[in-house]
């Protein structure tokens, strides 16, 4: 039976960049996928595209490709990444240039795009497509700020098409994360759109690989003390067969851990109903999924079933929110909790006196109950706490005035307080998120090949 090996080298934009080279050096692979796009990432990319229309993709993917190109070619590994973000064509063009500069002008860069719905929003409205919020049911007309981006989550078949057409590297815009893995499986094994069980197995393989090191011992709550060598964490590898069979593993000699306990945490990560994990290509059912520890950092996964896909693509839209600023001070023993509470009250009184208005605020006392509030096991008289107040304001000037106020409390406020960091905190603009659905019939993925022989 034909088997391929796929590695997951990145779990989000900002994750370890040395994992790609470690995966390439550690042993044989056929594909490596890199998942850059979280919900939050699209809003970061949107901010960057606002400043520079040529951006909007994960720009540091490009030097990473440059660094890894010799090994990718030597080991015959193909790379698939959603680094294209809001500008996949711009990303592909940058990669063509990198390949040419590296003396590999024959490299073919596949690009999947067409997920950007911004140019079509008005025509959708004309067709009666409202893009309602899929959790609250609210109409798009109720979005309280200007829409900044709108993208459909495409599936794996466009990625498979790019590979069928000879792409060495595939970059995409918004696709569901697991599609990065299912795409090469469709390409290699010739799976068809109605082979739901196979597509579901490939999708769940993708779900296990899309968060990188979190599937091989990173962020492992079930026994982090027993995970070897997190500094050299081996990123996860799926050995997949043409029947959808799967063994998850890591390269020998690298850090990390592959056991059912580790893998179960990732399996359940960011899912809803386990009987209906919905992506563009298939609805997966993992309620009968089983794991078997094969020893030596190898886990067999089986029992995934598939059902026909829905008639819609998921859509993520972003819109302008307000400005957020977090300010705070460290208070020390004795009575530091009482001091922190008094300090927070004092900040709010001062803002009232100065006429500084804000939309919302939240006081948190870290070291006491700051993260988990009423759920915390409170220590009665801790040595030190950090008092943090987060504010939501209409504009950056207001946020800045709040930032100026907090530093005065070192001299004019509650005693024994010091700043946590040097300098004043600076505000950031919020980009809010609006998930929706759109009929598949009105959106079409585009696949193109850039570069290659002239």
């Amino acid at each position, binding site marked *: 039976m034909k088997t391929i090996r796929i590695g997951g080298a990145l779990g989000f934009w900002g994750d370890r960049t040395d994992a790609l080279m470690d995966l390439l050096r550690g042993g044989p692979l056929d594909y490596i996928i890199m998942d850059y796009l979280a*919900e*939050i990432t699209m*809003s970061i990319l949107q901010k960057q595209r606002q400043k520079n229309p040529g951006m909007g993709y994960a720009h540091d993917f490009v030097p990473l490709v440059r660094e890894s190109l010799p090994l990718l070619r030597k080991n015959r590994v193909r790379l698939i990444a959603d680094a294209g973000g809001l500008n996949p064509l711009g990303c592909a063009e940058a990669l063509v240039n990198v390949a040419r500069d590296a003396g590999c002008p024959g490299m073919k860069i596949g690009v999947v795009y067409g997920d950007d719905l911004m140019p079509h929003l008005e025509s959708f409205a004309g067709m009666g497509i409202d893009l309602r919020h899929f*959790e609250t049911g609210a109409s798009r007309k109720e979005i309280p700020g200007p829409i900044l981006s709108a993208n459909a989550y495409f599936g794996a078949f466009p990625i498979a098409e790019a590979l069928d057409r000879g792409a060495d590297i595939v970059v995409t815009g918004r696709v569901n994360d697991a599609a990065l893995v299912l795409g090469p499986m469709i390409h290699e094994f010739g799976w068809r759109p109605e082979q739901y069980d196979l597509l579901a197995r490939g999708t769940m393989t993708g779900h296990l690989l899309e968060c990188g090191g*979190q599937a091989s011992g990173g*962020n492992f*709550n*079930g*026994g982090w003390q027993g995970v070897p060598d997190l500094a050299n964490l081996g990123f996860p590898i799926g050995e997949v067969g043409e029947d959808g069979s799967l063994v998850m593993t890591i390269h020998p000699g690298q850090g990390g851990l592959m056991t*059912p*306990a580790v893998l*179960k*945490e*990732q*399996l*359940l*990560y*960011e*899912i*809803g*109903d*386990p*009987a209906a994990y919905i992506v563009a290509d298939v609805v997966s059912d*993992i*309620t*009968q*999924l*089983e*794991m078997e520890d094969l020893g030596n950092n190898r886990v067999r996964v089986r*029992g995934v079933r598939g059902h026909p896909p829905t008639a819609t693509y998921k859509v993520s839209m*972003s819109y302008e*929110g307000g400005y*957020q600023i977090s300010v705070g001070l460290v208070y020390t023993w004795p009575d530091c909790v009482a001091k922190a509470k008094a300090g927070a009250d004092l900040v709010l009184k001062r803002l009232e006196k100065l006429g500084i208005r804000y939309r*919302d*605020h*939240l006081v*948190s006392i*870290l070291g006491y109950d*700051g*993260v*988990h*509030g*009423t*759920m915390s*096991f409170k220590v009665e008289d801790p040595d030190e706490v950090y008092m*943090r107040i*987060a*504010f*939501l304001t209409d504009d950056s000037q207001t946020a800045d005035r709040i930032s100026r106020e907090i530093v005065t409390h070192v001299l004019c406020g509650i005693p024994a307080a010091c700043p946590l960091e040097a300098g004043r905190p600076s505000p950031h603009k*919020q*980009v*809010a*998120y609006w*998930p929706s659905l759109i009929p598949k019939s009105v959106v079409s993925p585009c696949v193109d090949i850039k570069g290659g022989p002239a």
Partner: protein
Amino acid sequence: MKEVALARIAHGRSGDKGDTVNCGIIARKPEYYSVIEEQVTAARVREHFGIFCRGTVIRYDLPKIHAFNFVLTHALGGGGTVSLRIDTQGKTYAAALMRMKVLVPDDWGV
């Protein structure tokens, strides 16, 4: 019977989708599964999170891997990009759930 934190018999991971958080909770041994099934109900989890979850809690059971998935709606103060909380993405919610008390047999070495 003795009272212990859920952390003694389970582990888990949590994450976000919009303003929804899910907590995947896994029994540390197969025999712990039924204790969690009986005692860590959706209603109790909803009560445990208090103001941190302003929506509903649904529990999904995965007996073949001795695990549960709890889905909490309206649980992030508006969602990852706009929340004023410290943990804006619900990364630590499973850890918060680990504080819940459960009753286990006295002879369990947990």
